[in-house]
């Protein structure tokens, strides 16, 4: 269980995250959703202390994370982000093995784990393990990023727009893969995105943020049926409008295109 208690982050006079409190029960897939600069990434990075909070606290499994040594905390939490950040001077296998190596696992155990993980993320171990990560496609790189995050068997995973830079088809494949994976491993996940469709597809619950504050939190269905305010309603309506626009362009139905004009 992850608990954010009155979490606040200030940069000078600017409030990036303002008194945010959320509970994420074990095994839940929570999506932090919002536009650019709403504070969702800052919030995520405060969970594994890549950013230190200005106020409030993060509790993980009943312990205040501020009392843990940062690097020890991070070894227990998987983290994946849009740029992936695979180390270019290491092979694929070494990238995946990095956290177990830091934890001092035996070489044999590490090798077995790497094979296991490559299989788990659907990549050919024999073909890829000694390759340089820069030789791989974006989709393959992100799968390896996920494998690296899962290497030391964390129970919690943080993902920061992990599929944002991928082409739509690859993105859909990886979304399905993640949806399956989290059930297989019963992970607790906090997932940051601004892609509403992605949030609706993956989330158990969605937390909608704006200007550092929580606007509404709930299941996708609950949010769609009962948006708390105009901002939430418009935001969640965006994919549908986009779909309508696409349809208009295909069928030439002008009435719905006028609707879109009026809504703007």
């Amino acid at each position: 269980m992850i608990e954010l208690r009155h979490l606040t982050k200030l940069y000078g006079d600017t409030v990036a995250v303002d008194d945010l409190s959320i509970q994420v029960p074990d095994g839940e897939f929570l999506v932090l959703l919002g536009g650019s600069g709403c504070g969702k990434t800052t919030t995520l990075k405060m969970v594994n202390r890549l950013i230190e909070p200005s106020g409030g606290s993060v509790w993980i499994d009943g312990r205040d994370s501020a009392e843990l040594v940062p690097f020890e905390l991070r070894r227990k939490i998987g983290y994946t982000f849009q740029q992936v950040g695979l180390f270019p001077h290491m092979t694929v296998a070494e990238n995946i093995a990095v956290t177990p190596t830091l934890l001092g696992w035996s070489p044999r155990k590490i090798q077995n784990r790497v094979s296991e993980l490559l299989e788990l993320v659907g990549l050919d171990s024999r073909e890829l393990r000694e390759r340089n990560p820069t030789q791989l496609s974006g989709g393959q790189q992100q799968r390896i990023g996920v494998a690296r995050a899962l290497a030391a068997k964390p129970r919690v995973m943080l993902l920061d727009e992990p599929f944002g830079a991928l082409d739509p088809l690859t993105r859909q494949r990886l979304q399905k893969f993640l949806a399956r994976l989290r059930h297989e491993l019963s992970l607790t996940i906090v997932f940051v995105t601004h892609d509403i469709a992605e949030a609706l597809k993956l989330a158990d619950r969605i937390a909608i943020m704006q200007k550092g504050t929580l606007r509404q939190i709930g299941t996708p269905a609950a949010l769609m049926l009962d948006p708390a305010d105009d901002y939430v309603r418009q935001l969640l309506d965006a994919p549908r409008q986009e779909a309508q626009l696409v349809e208009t362009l295909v069928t030439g139905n002008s009435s719905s295109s006028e609707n879109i004009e009026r809504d703007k």
Partner: protein
Amino acid sequence: MKEQLALLPSYLTSHVQLTLLALLCSTAVSLPLGLVVTRVKWLERPVLALAAIIQTVPSLALLAIMVPLLATFNFQSIGFLPAFIGLTLYGILPILRNTVTGIANVDPALLDAAKAVGMTPSQQLYRVELPIAMPVIIAGLRTATAWTVGVATLSTPVGATSLGNYIFSGLQTRNHTSVLIGCVAAAILALVLDGLVRGLEISVRKRQLRQFFGLIAALGTLYLYLGFNLATTVFLPSIRPVTIGAKGFTEQYILAEILGQWIENETGRPSTQMQSLGSMVAFDALVAGDVDAYVDYTGTLWSNVMGRPTVGGNRTNVLAEVRTFLASQHGIQIAATLGFENAYAVAARAPDAETLGLTKISDLIPLGNTLSMGGDFEFFSRPEWRSIQDIYGLTFQEQRTMDAALMYQAAASGAVDLISAYTTDGRISAYNLRVLEDDRFAIPPYDAVILVSEQAMRRWPDVFEAISALNGTIDVEAMREMNLAVDEEGIAPERVAASYLAKLRTSQSPDITELNKPPPSPAR
């Protein structure tokens, strides 16, 4: 060529020793400094600026300034140490700058990733930042290697043997083979060392452990050998030979050879030379005891060491005053007066002098504004020049500073009308120049004197005695002939010296001048 190549092992060893030890130190200083600077942001600008300032000091000046600086703190101020420190400073900037750039250019996403997978700050540095910045840092090391090998040739004038010995003496004695050997050897050395560093980088990147450890072992052995070599020279000074100093021009090379060969012959003690020293470096080296004896000139000592602004009267008086000053201030003895003067003189092309009716400097007064004058590197800042200007009221249309070896040719070819010639230079007649008489006595006397340090005198009384026997043995004509033999006929200084000494030993009564017997040494 053969004679020159025989010197290669000793020159090359010293050069490699200087280069590699300096590079090791530059790296040991700049790599950690670079890392500190990337961690403590506000240090970056001042540290890089300081390194850049050091770099803008001309390399020769950087090495030369180490001499008085080290002397101030009572360190060995001539030879290995000043060259080593200068080179180390010179190698810092490229490595430092590339370390800072390399680390700063590591993708921030990778740093986030390194933190997120649970690395401690030092693990981030060793496992991610350094390996990723390594190619850039190595590139800096390679730049430093090439620079250091090149600049090390400039350590000759501060008394450290290097491949520069070929270049400096070759340029002065117009021995082009010697210059070429020095340049080619330095270039090959630079390529070899660069290849070594490159090999290291490739073996690290491709993880060829055997190749890596092979190269490290080779380098390690080299360092051990050099370190041992250095240790023996530093810690076993008892086996030290008599060290003869020579400034960087032909006459000095010849006289140093004469001194060395004479001492070896008379006392059986081995001698060695520190060649191509700067004018003041030679004197400082004598004071510090790094050089035991060398030939200087009374006029030079008068103005440079004693700091007298005025021209000091006749030869006898100047000599007496210089002798007293050196003995009382520095414990240095004038062991012998060689019997010739190497003074500055104003020389013009002989045919021009004929047509214009020039025989003395005062004849120039009506022509001054239409003439150009060439001088060696120090002439126009020397008191002689001020004195000529004051006493004759001369100003020239143009004054050009040039290398002494090129000055005579410049006058002969008409590039300048007058030059500051040296009276013993054989090229005055060889290039058909005429010395103009100093009819108003503006130029001080420049008697060649052999100086011996206090330390050497105490250590080797026999050496002092042998040197004293050279009193009055070389007159102006003899010196001019010897200079010409080296400068124009391309005969090696050691051979010219040997044949002169042979002649000297057979002639029972060497030419004695009126300056002969020195008065008894002042009591100390």
